[in-house]
């Protein structure tokens, strides 16, 4: 069980690394949020579950933290993306389609 826990923690650390890299490399704020949110959410799940597996006493609280992150992290990035869209931050030049028509008519 301890070995399984450490494997989970290692996978989570790798996804944290990927999240940072995605934040750095992607061309505009929306793509950055996509990469950052997905990678860090799965990374957190993996790390925290791994900690819960290594030490079984921590498992209930670890599950609680996982539920909390699953609820708050997508909401935070969604609110941030909406704010960026509303103040009219231009997406990258590769963006071809825009059905939401900017401004307040989301």
């Amino acid at each position, binding site marked *: 069980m301890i070995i399984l826990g450490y494997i989970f923690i290692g996978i989570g650390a790798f996804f944290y690394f990927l999240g940072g890299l995605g934040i750095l490399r992607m061309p505009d704020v929306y793509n950055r949020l996509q990469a950052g949110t997905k990678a860090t959410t799965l990374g957190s799940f993996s790390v925290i579950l791994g900690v819960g597996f290594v030490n079984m006493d921590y498992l209930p609280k670890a599950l609680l933290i996982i539920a*909390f992150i699953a*609820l*708050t992290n997508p*909401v935070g990035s969604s*609110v941030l993306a*909406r704010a960026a869209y*509303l103040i009219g931050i231009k997406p990258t030049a590769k963006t071809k389609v825009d059905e939401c028509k900017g401004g307040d008519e989301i």
Partner: protein
Amino acid sequence: MRRFLSALIVLGLIMFFISTLPLIPEFGKASLSKVSRAFIDKDVNGNGGNIQYGVSKDLENGAANVVTSIVVDYRSFDTLGEVTVLFTSALGVGIILSGYKRKKFGREPNFILRVSVGILLPLILLFGAYVFIHGHLTPGGGFPGGTIIAAGILLLYLSNEEFDLSKTVKFVEGISGSLYVIVGLLGLAVSGVFLINFLPTGVVGNLFSSGIVPIIYILIGFKVGAELSGIVAELHREG
């Protein structure tokens, strides 16, 4: 040029902090004065071997957290004053900002945010209660717990336009403040000293193990939460 300079300064500061790190003693190996050793021995982590977590009972003060025992038991009168300071500042904010008409945010609140705060808010309040109920066992207590509750109220204000709780806040604040003084007066009646710890203390590490400390921390938690929520409400009303 300015950026380069600031980066240089930050690097220098980081080097300075790293170079001072080895000077800090290791955890649990600090050389203590007689007074702090005496207080720690009265609480839990005494190295003398006569007090142990989860075993010893009926101590002078059963809190597992030394800071809590000093703040809410030995120097409880001082804490009453601190809470009063916070109350005065909340009152000042209320007086300065009252009389303005309530303005709204420019944009209508986000749907996702509104619904998710609706689900999260009871859990945030419960977590604040958890922090201040376990103030004598964990590093926490009335002030952080109240702040967590106020953060929840702030989230509610950010996500919900039609919402006002100024009246309730004042009510809770007054009730918990006067209950604090009443607990102190009970100590005066029982043992002749204001705010003395007159309840029995149990085994160190249990939930009911520290006399009046948890009760006072619950009252402080309610009071601080209400005061900070009141400040948030006044600031939000001002726009």
